[in-house]
């Protein structure tokens, strides 16, 4: 019965002689007839396994499964026995397909794992340099012995990241001609997509095959397709001792290149957009404020929006143009919030700058600004305070004009706090405006504080539902006599920040103008 079994089977006795074999066994091993020594009739791995099993003491327990090749197939050999006469039956099963499948599965798992790792590393950053480095490093570690990522030229130099077998990416800007490498120029173009190109390593220039890499066995160029924009190209290099790229590997490299290219082009687009935003934003950001003509100045700004850097509050300092003249400090608040309001502050700041030559007459400046805003297409208005500043001996003389803006406070040395009584119409609503200019003198150590209503109208406090209010600000300022301008601004900003907690607030701007306290000479 078992003679016709589809699996090869051999019965071997304790001396290592085949006592029986079935048809399938004799098809597989032509010399495995009964009476033949096992050694010589079957491959060495099987006779070794039998010898080992016979040597092992303790009968009854089945021995371990042996495996090895027969021709170009892989077999598993299952022993049963030895029986009471020391005979062992070896059953053989062709395991080739199973092993191939297992190997394919392992490879596939490894690749999936790699793609997941690659996607995680690549997608986490919007920084082009970092994405390029990650691409080169991953490619060198998983796909080849070395990898080179080249991106489109910036000012005729190609940013290149090379990662060798040491795993450390090296960055260069190279003035090279991609046409030196066959297929590279096309790959860099990105579109239409090109299949990967095999390159003759001998044709590769020195910037691709780096010193110390050794002899190149194979080399392939593949493009990094982005979101419709060319992100760059990837060159993979393998040493001679490693196998050349198989078709499967090449397809897999393209899969990786697709992910890397998408990440790189997203990072590239982000960098381009932020650079444009930076450039446009520069004019709208609050200016740096420092001492002018011996007068201490400090300012602070906090826009309302979480992610915003500009808003509808603004300030500016225009230092005097000549000895004896006044400097001009402006603080204001346009209607609206966010970028749109910021654009309007930019226009107002530019207009005021153009009106500087007539800054001696605040009323005239404000009337001209009013006219400009009224002629605009949309309804837009602004409240602001113009402050002309001049050093006089130890002190500072201020001329302030408020246009519908909360009254600035003067913090006196004797701890009293006075609002500046300048009242005037807001700008951009009425054809005719009224202004009054008030003169204030600051003695050494005294400060004038300009602020926007974002400070006083902020809701919060320990109970969460109270407005900070002018009265409270004034009370706090009474504790602030003698503070330098910078410290006072920080104090007010901190109070407002503490008051609002995690709640919502409007744009907040503060400017402090101080007459410096008497200069203490170093001992």
């Amino acid at each position, binding site marked *: 019965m078992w003679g016709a079994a589809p699996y090869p089977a051999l019965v071997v006795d304790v001396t290592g002689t085949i006592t029986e074999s079935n048809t399938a066994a004799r098809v597989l091993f032509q010399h495995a007839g009964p009476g033949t020594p096992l050694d010589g009739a079957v491959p060495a791995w099987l006779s070794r396994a039998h010898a080992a099993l016979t040597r092992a003491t303790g009968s009854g327990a089945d021995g371990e499964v042996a495996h090895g090749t027969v021709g170009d197939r892989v077999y598993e050999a299952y022993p049963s026995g030895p029986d009471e006469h020391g005979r062992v039956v070896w059953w053989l099963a062709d395991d080739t397909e199973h092993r191939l499948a297992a190997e394919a599965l392992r490879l596939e798992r490894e690749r999936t794992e790699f793609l997941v790792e690659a996607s995680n*590393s690549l997608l*986490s*950053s*919007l*920084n082009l*340099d*970092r994405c390029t480095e*990650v691409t080169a490093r991953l490619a060198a570690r998983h796909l080849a012995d070395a990898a080179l990522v080249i991106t489109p030229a910036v000012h005729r130099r190609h940013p290149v990241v090379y990662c060798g077998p040491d795993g450390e990416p090296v960055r260069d800007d190279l003035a090279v001609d991609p046409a030196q490498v066959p297929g590279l120029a096309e790959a860099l173009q990105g579109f239409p997509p090109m299949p990967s190109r095999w390159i003759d390593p001998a044709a590769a220039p020195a910037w691709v095959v780096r010193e110390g890499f050794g002899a190149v066995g194979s080399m392939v160029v593949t493009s990094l397709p982005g979101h419709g924009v060319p992100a760059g190209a990837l060159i993979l290099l393998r040493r001679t001792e490693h196998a050349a790229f198989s078709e499967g590997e090449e397809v897999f490299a393209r899969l990786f290149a697709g992910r890397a290219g998408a990440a790189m082009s997203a*990072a590239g687009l*982000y*960098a381009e957009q*932020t650079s444009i935003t930076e450039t446009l934003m520069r004019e709208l950001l609050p200016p740096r404020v420092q001492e002018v003509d011996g007068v201490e100045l400090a300012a602070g700004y*906090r826009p309302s929006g*979480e*992610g915003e*850097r500009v808003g509808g509050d603004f300030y500016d300092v225009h230092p005097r143009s000549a000895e004896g003249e006044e400097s001009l400090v402006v603080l204001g608040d346009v209607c609206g919030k966010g970028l749109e309001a910021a654009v309007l502050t930019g226009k107002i700041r530019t207009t005021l700058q153009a009106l500087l030559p007539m800054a001696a007459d605040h009323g005239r400046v404000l009337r001209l600004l009013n006219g400009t805003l009224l002629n605009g297409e949309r309804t837009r208005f602004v409240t602001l305070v113009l402050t002309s500043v001049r050093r006089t001996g130890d002190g500072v003389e201020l001329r302030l004009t408020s246009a519908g803006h909360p009254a600035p406070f003067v913090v006196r040395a004797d701890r009293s706090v006075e609002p500046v009584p300048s009242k005037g119409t807001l700008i951009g609503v009425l054809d005719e405006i009224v202004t009054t200019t008030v003169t204030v003198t600051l003695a050494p150590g005294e400060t004038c504080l300009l602020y926007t209503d974002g400070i006083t109208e902020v809701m919060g*406090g*320990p*109970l*969460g*539902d109270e407005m900070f209010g002018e009265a409270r600000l004034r009370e706090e300022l009474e*504790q*602030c*006599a*003698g*503070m*330098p301008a*910078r*410290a*006072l601004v*920080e*104090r007010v*900003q*901190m109070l407002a*920040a503490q008051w609002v907690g*995690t709640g919502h607030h409007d744009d907040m701007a503060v400017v402090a103008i101080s007459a410096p*306290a008497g*200069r*203490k*000479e*170093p*001992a």
Partner: protein
Amino acid sequence: MTVPSVVAPADVEACADRLFADAVEGAEHAAVDGVLAAYDAGVDAETLLLDVVARVQARVGAEWAGNRLTVAQEHTATAVNDRVVAALAHHPPNRAATAALPALGRVTVACVDGEWHALPARLLAEVLRLRGWHVDYLGAQVPTAHLISHVHRTGPAAVALSGSIPTRLPTAHAVITACQATGTAVLVGGAAFGPDGRFATLLGADAWAPDARAAAGVLAARPVPRPTPAPGLPHLGDQEYTMVARSSRQLVRETLHGLEERYPAMRAYTDRQRRHTAEDIAHIVDFLATALYVDDAELFTGFLGWTAGILAARNVPGRSLLPAVHVLAQRLRDFPRASALLEHGRNHLDESLPHP
């Protein structure tokens, strides 16, 4: 001014004493001149930043806590110290020495969003510059969104995050994980993370440094630590933090009313007294929420003890905190973790303070 040939520790100490006096007085020019003179006399910039300016700033904080400095003096001194740091950074010989260093790479230094103590971060930024780093110092009050877009734009080797106020720890957690999500390692430091840095570990920071020198050491060790996924905070599953944090202002109001019912004398408080009481309660609630977030009883008792000390220095008995803690505990009796924290804090305070 005589130039000492050898810079002894005593000179550094004398320099710190002079700076303290000038800073508290708001004598900015004298303060700057004194520190620059010490630099020219051979004291190195890092010593001036950390053993003079930082030490003076710590003393300013301690003097304020002891009610020996007013809030105005504290702010003035901080502003002067800030100016001293800037002046030292721009001092031509120091600038030349820094420019000659081999470049180390780029790092970002920022404070946790909502933090207004900028000086520790500023000092770290300067120390790292002195070691050769290209530092982007973003300052205090940095919205997390800005920090992240900055990180994307500049791709720093690491973000160094400074936090002084413990109540910002939940925000710090958000900032740390957001930076790590960009593939950037985060080094944290500052009083908020605990004297042993335990909250740094808890919140999954890649590294913690007890001071600026140690932070520079961490960053110098190559490679800069790779980001690791942050561990979770399983205790947040009970929602007690969320509940207390979300209704914190409501809790303050209820506690204030509860106190007024229990202590009729409080009804005669002036607006100012009432506000101070409300502010004290608000702090208690904020620290309670933070202690729930990090699941750490010591953070809460430590806060109560510190506040009692501040009050005592101002001739207010520290025991005056007990009724508020008690009333708050009654409101939160259905929340086991919060109740345990309040109970523990109250007992600790009760035992550690002299009985009237």
